């Protein structure tokens, strides 16, 4: 697994655990808003969990236009 795949996998696991969606139902290309059924406030919650998990700061504006897990992983990867 390359670093980006590993990061993507960790995000999927984090999202699955926190939003109680089975891991097997989540894929890298999924729209996380639709798949997780989350609103904007829950998205901020996910952002905080991601920051804590990866020990990074991820400014919200980095999420503009990002709605799938793989692109989110790319944003995170650029902070590692």
């Amino acid at each position, binding site marked *: 697994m390359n670093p980006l795949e590993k990061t993507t996998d960790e995000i999927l696991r984090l999202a699955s655990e926190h939003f109680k969606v089975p891991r097997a139902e989540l894929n890298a290309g999924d729209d996380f808003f639709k798949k997780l059924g989350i609103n904007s406030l829950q998205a901020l919650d996910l952002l905080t969990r991601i920051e804590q998990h990866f020990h990074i700061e991820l*400014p919200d504006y980095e999420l503009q236009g990002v709605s799938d897990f793989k692109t989110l992983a790319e944003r995170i990867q650029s902070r590692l």
Partner: protein
Amino acid sequence: MKSFQGQTLSWQVSAGTIELVLDRAPCNEIGLAALGELEKFAAALESLQRDAHALIISSARAEGFCAGADLRELYERSQELRAAERASAVRDFLERIHRVMNAIDAAPLTTVAAVHGVTFGGGFELALTCDLIVADKMARFCFPELRLGLIPGFGGIPRLKRDTGNAVVRDLLLTGRSINAAKAQSVGLVSQVTAEGDALRVSRATAAQIGKFDRGTAIAAKRFIKPIPHEELRREIDVFCELFTRPAVEAGLRKFVESTDALPYLP
């Protein structure tokens, strides 16, 4: 009034601590109703503080401490008024909210904001009036006002400047980004970070600790170390009111109110 149950908040005194709890769906947005009840609280504070050594402000909403000003109400009210009336109405609102914020800031008690989740805009400004901010690890802090063509208007800039370095103020204000509790603690804004859901418990423990010390000394110490930046607070109202009349603000408010964006809270 030792206890009060309103439409947007409640308070009670217990074991020497005044607990003010915000509770207006969805996330304690501050509009006219909340302002009215905050004014009631500020007026009651003089008698409440005789039997208390601490004040804790917290939120009963799962979403967070407070998402700030009620932008929908602000937009709808501004649409009902002529341009000249809009400027006067917003100044009146700001002066009222500043009186409340100043009363809490200067209260002869140790004040603690127990925050979780969204602590944005006016909510962040309310937290900054307190002597201490205790944040659970899921709290996020933000001044998103620039995306509306505005600056924070409830006293946030002078209070943020009071508590932290200018670089942090510029970062938060000019990017409009939100920061988490750990980051807020690292820059000196947050006193303690707790486990999720534990901010109120830790705040109560902190209030109990504070209650052990001589109250007169604590009040003298607070007055000495925590100046109220009155001149800058007045200037902030002026700058906000100047900006508010600009077309960009009406457009920004309309965009927020009409947004179907998944992330309307983002800059």
